[in-house]
């Protein structure tokens, strides 16, 4: 491993971490909350990227995994008095297992069929949540606001000598999770695992004949990406302090896939761009025109235009710029 090559991305990452750490001092609390959501989406996108970018499996159902994570957190907090931070790893494990189990039958599906199947799961999730009322609180949902288990909700919390109000705390929590998650993913994908996953994406038959156990890696990818989505969902629940069946609609699943494609599969910059896109596109569209329906039109047109202009996403643009500057 050539250390000089690794130095540049590591330096960039550290730089990014510094920016993230300092940003809240310069922006309003409202903005900080918005950026917290960007961090949440980033975590989900990191996971989805492992699935779609590395093994080429298309999922239109990651919103459902977020729902599982979100509800795990909500149920643990409201009915079992578990502190919010402890629910996050639990959500990761629960969702990861569900994802892994889903990955097993998903092996039989490819491309658009898998997209359809995951789409079906995501669409039915709200109705299923409603059906199991006793467990999930049904249509009324579960309220986390004001619970003592919710950090910084009643009074500011002190972290590393700094006093943080809810929005700032949220921001740091989400971004710490996202960046740690990225590092974990990076470590996972660097070595043999990453090469194997990429081999699966590029040519299944070639990968199989060179001894890569397709089934294990594809289901592993599902489990891991689901776990990330579960964590994102858990944070989402904490951030919105409320979950009900409509908190995680099919639109969310669609947006996640859009985010991964617009950002471009692969680089951290691309994923961040994707997360920003998910959070801010509806807002920007509203700013262009407030007439009912107009934001949707703007979003749709932007999406289509992006596929024409930047088919490889933002990451592709960055890669092209990089090759230009290298000369």
């Amino acid at each position, binding site marked *: 491993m050539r250390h000089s090559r690794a130095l540049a991305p590591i330096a960039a990452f550290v730089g990014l971490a510094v920016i993230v750490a300092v940003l809240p001092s310069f922006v309003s609390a409202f903005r900080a909350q918005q950026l917290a959501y960007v961090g949440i989406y980033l975590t989900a996108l990191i996971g989805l990227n492992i699935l779609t970018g590395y093994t080429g499996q*298309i999922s239109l159902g990651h919103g459902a995994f977020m729902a599982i994570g979100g509800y795990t957190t909500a149920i643990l907090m409201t009915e079992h008095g578990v502190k919010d931070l402890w629910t996050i790893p639990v959500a990761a494990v629960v969702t990861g297992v569900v994802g892994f189990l889903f990955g097993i039958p998903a092996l039989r599906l490819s491309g658009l069929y898998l997209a359809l199947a995951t789409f079906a799961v995501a669409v039915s999730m709200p109705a299923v949540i409603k059906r199991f009322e006793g467990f999930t609180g049904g249509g009324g949902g579960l309220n986390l606001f004001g619970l003592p288990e919710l950090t910084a909700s009643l009074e500011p919390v002190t972290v590393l000598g700094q006093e943080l109000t809810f929005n700032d705390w949220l921001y740091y929590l989400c971004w710490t999770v996202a960046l740690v998650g990225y590092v974990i993913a990076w470590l996972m994908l660097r070595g043999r695992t990453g090469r194997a996953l990429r081999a699966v994406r590029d040519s299944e038959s070639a990968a199989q004949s060179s001894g890569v156990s397709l089934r294990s890696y594809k289901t592993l990818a599902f489990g891991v990406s689901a776990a990330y989505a579960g964590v994102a969902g858990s944070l989402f629940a904490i951030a919105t302090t409320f979950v009900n069946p409509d908190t995680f609609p099919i639109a969310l699943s669609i947006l996640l896939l859009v985010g991964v494609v617009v950002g471009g599969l692969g680089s951290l910059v691309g994923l961040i761009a994707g997360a920003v896109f998910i959070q801010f596109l509806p807002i920007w569209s509203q700013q262009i025109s407030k007439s009912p*329906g107009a934001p949707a039109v703007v979003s749709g047109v932007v*999406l289509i235009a992006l596929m024409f202009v930047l088919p490889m996403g933002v990451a592709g643009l960055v890669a092209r710029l990089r090759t230009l500057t290298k000369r």
Partner: protein
Amino acid sequence: MADFWQQVVAGLASGSIYASLALALVLIHRATGVINFAQGEMATFSTYIAWALTTNHGWSYWPAFAVTLLASFAGGVAIHQGIIRPNEKGSVLRVVIVTIGLLLALNGLVTLIWSGEVRAMQSPFPTRTIDIAGVAISIQDIGTIGVVLATVVALWALFQYTKVGLAMRAAAVNPAEARLVGVRVTWMLSLGWGLAAVLGAISGMLAAPSLFLDPNLMAALLIYAFAAAVLGGIDSPIGAVVGGLTLGVGLNLIGAYVDFVGADLRLPAALAVILVVLLVKPSGIFGKSEVKRV
């Protein structure tokens, strides 16, 4: 027993609507290998055109129906030529995103032009029922089944007996070879999109009178259509029709007679169908199994 037959006929009627939309999905998938997530919104848009013509401009029903079909055809062709074709060479994901963008844009456009209020759409058929062997059957249901049946037969005749139909089939199964015999493949694919848009419009116009017209009319219908297409085989036109009718009747009967399902879980029931079929036999009832065991 009379109740049972009423449910069956009603199921056939809603099944016809699913079948029409499913046929649209199958047409497009067979021709271009794309799953058009925007098919429902295209149909909604067409239905609004029909509504505007009849309600705002006082047209009588069947002329408005015909003009809507023509407009939908043109729209489908234009969408394929302008938006889909340039992205066909990219990855599957790219086309999926484009159809999703189309979904959003059309949905928003409908609200923008005609507002999100729920509208009433007139039906070409009287709402009476007639008595057949002691069972009260709605004329609307019979009419719906009839229209879809006529459309399916017309389409079948087009594909089997005309030069254009043959060219379209050739372009769908083997575009490179079709070019060599002089078929303008891209235009044949656009034709497919045009016909699919027509099928979607028919679906919407038949559904609107009972489901009422609002921008989200076709959202649930699209899911049922997906279920029907998957059940029948995503590349099989016969499968789409059989799948749609089976689904319509099946869901009606299950909804009426199985308590656990009730009205709320009809949609998840359809989705369960999708999942089960995809897991057990992904190619559907009429599809050919792909030999791709990896």
